[in-house]
């Protein structure tokens, strides 16, 4: 388990290099006074706070969520505000407390179960899938499970193979689960609120490295009844030459790649998936039909990944519209190495996305025709 909380110094949403070793400066967490900016951590904290105050049936359960203020400080201040009955510190018993959450959800409470990282959810995956996801179906609609499983997912920095896996593809294949992956603070707030209000089990995949990043935020987002639809992707940047789909941290990389590509005359459309399940096939396909090229980006393992599913979906629905083979960027097909330089090679970087986009535009080889 991670003993050290890491925060990153960021400026204006553009992350610094992810692999700085050694001491990290703990960024001041004061809410930015230049109005309308919020870190993802603040967004999640405020969303939890508002939902817990709106509905007394919502409670938070997990390791270190109470007195420690949250392993990544997401639940800071909630214990003082709501008391130990509603912010429950658990022993190290993922299977046990996840099952307890599911049992409580059967009876109309709305638990938010926090996993310190989603890697630990593997100890509880039986409950997430067999007793939460499948119950509404097995009981023919009698018993619904309004539970949220949340926590950081995917690679952090230098945490090794057992703490770095991305679970989007695993959970995304289960009927009966909704799987969300926010990127910005607006996503984090809106999707977490939607997840807590939702009557079905939701797996909410956050990203540890995004917690400290600030994003501009509009006034509507700060409203306590704000929420985003589950199952709808967002077009972060419009373009006409190539579609790049991504989720979670990779959206930031895709946006940077789009900036680089624009300088070279390639206009990339960046789609922030937001929802892995249900996957917004219509938005993806509409975009591909416009641009005729597709690059999928994800952090997880390539085989049976989210990119594979998007690729198949596009082939099924928009085959005639494709001008180039679909490019699939994913993490390396190895358990995450520890050494900094190897770790950098095992996770997609901005250059990889740029290269893939150029390949799909036939710009990468010397024989390529002009766009």
């Amino acid at each position, binding site marked *: 388990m991670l003993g050290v909380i890491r925060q990153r110094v960021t400026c204006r949403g553009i992350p610094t290099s992810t692999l700085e070793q050694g001491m990290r400066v703990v960024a001041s967490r004061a809410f930015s006074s230049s109005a309308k900016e919020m870190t993802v951590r603040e967004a999640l904290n405020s969303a939890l706070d508002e939902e817990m105050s709106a509905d007394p049936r919502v409670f938070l359960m997990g390791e270190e969520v109470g007195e420690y203020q949250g392993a990544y400080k997401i639940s800071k201040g909630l214990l003082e505000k709501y008391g130990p009955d509603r912010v429950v510190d658990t022993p190290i018993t993922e299977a046990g407390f996840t099952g307890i959450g599911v049992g409580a959800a059967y009876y109309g409470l709305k638990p938010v179960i926090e996993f310190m990282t989603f890697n630990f959810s593997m100890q509880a995956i039986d409950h997430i899938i067999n007793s939460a996801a499948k119950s509404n179906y097995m009981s023919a609609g009698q018993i619904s499970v309004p539970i949220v499983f949340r926590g950081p997912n995917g690679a952090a920095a230098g945490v090794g193979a057992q703490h770095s896996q991305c679970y989007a593809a695993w959970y995304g294949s289960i009927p009966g689960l*909704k799987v969300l992956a926010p990127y910005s603070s607006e996503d984090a707030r809106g999707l977490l609120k939607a997840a807590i209000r939702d009557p079905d089990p939701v797996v909410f995949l956050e990203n540890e490295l995004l917690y400290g990043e600030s994003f501009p935020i509009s006034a509507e987002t700060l409203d306590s009844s704000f929420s985003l639809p589950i199952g709808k992707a967002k077009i972060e940047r419009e373009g006409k030459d190539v579609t790049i789909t991504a989720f979670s941290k990779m959206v930031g990389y895709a946006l940077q790649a789009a900036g680089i590509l624009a300088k070279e005359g390639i206009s990339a459309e960046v789609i922030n998936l937001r929802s892995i399940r249900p996957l917004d096939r219509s938005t993806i396909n509409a975009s591909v039909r416009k641009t005729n090229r597709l690059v999928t980006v994800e952090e997880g393992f390539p085989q049976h990944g989210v990119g594979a599913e998007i690729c198949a979906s596009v082939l099924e629905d928009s085959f005639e519209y494709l001008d180039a083979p679909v490019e699939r960027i994913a993490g390396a097909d190895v358990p995450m190495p520890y050494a900094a330089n190897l770790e950098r090679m095992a996770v997609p970087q901005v250059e990889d996305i740029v290269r893939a986009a150029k390949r799909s535009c036939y710009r990468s080889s010397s024989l390529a025709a002009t766009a």
Partner: protein
Amino acid sequence: MACSATAQIIQPLSINSARSVDNSDACTKTLSPSSFLGSTPRINKKLFAVNKSISPLARRPTTVFAVSSDVVKEKKLKSNSSLSNLLITKKEGLELYEDMYLGRAFEDMCAQMYYRGKMFGFVHLYNGQEAVSTGFIKLLKKEDYVVSTYRDHVHSLSKGVPAREVMSELFGKTTGCCRGQGGSMHMFSKEHNVLGGFAFIGEGIPVATGAAFTSKYKREVLKEDCDEVALAFFGDGTCNNGQFFECLNMAALWKLPIVFVVENNLWAIGMSHVRATSDPQIWKKGPAFGMPGIHVDGMDVLKVREVAKEAIDRARRGEGPTLVECETYRFRGHSLADPDELRDPAEKAHYATRDPITALKKYMAENKLVSEAELKAIDKKIDELVEDAVEFADKSPVPARSQLLENVFADPRGFGIGPNGKYRCEDPKFTEGTAQV
């Protein structure tokens, strides 16, 4: 005393080992501490004889110490003093008999239907263990929760799910309690608060603990008037699983209103309990976590009922969980596909003489509680009920093709709830463009 449990609230009791094995007349004796029999000496020897490789165990003392909390012990001593007190009234007796006979008749009919091809897949029958289900569940209110394993037909029936619905579910018809979508191993009923029906052993225990958590939460946070109790039924094999211990810990830690009922039928498919467990006395695991651990003869519905009353009342009062180990036996194999070759026929014969239904009948006859005719009337009524259930299930339609994709989500098309509180897919503007604020 060989009991080494850390006993803050537990007083170990030693058992008089001179009792006869054929204690089908055990019901007729009033309860006294010494009647808290678990395995008798002969049974222990029988088990050890079957597993000759476990030589260290053969040297253990062959009596089993039952342990009960102080309160239970005091109650027993009190009832000692008035030998004329019967344990049940006539009405209760008939209710218990009817419920156990329903369980037995239903399961026998299931076996018949399975061999005729009307039922399929995995079917796990409960014959022989009826005393545990009836003894516990008949003491519950409708709002109390029951969580079971794959051997859940009789738990559902005892809790009140109509036999017709259970039988239809087993036939895979749309009139079943889960519209045919759950099956034998996944009996759910919201109305009767049966929370399943889980195929993975140990999976139901945290779910039951969660239901107990809800009960406590409703009382303390939502300030509702709620004293509902959760019962978790599971077997001896489950007691080696990590989730069991995790939940014993948390239930005792948070004083949750739950009773953990171990149906120790000595066999986990073909794995004998003593071969799989370092310390086969499961009730001892309760005190290790700070809750009372009780061992009771699970073939005797009256004894089970006495212990159950105490444990359920304890939970209802908010004093926390209890672990009850019921020594019982399943007359049939693990499932209808199990050839059941590993169990010693002599062991099976022995337990057949301790059939809970016969035992109850004998008790009621000897104490002149009911007449033969009344019992026969119940038998007839239940047989007709079960026949009717089969006919109903037979005539019911199979699910329509469109039912395949239903019920995956509570929210009709899985797109969540919008800010106005309605399902998003019902909002006509939902499919317009990409998501904006």
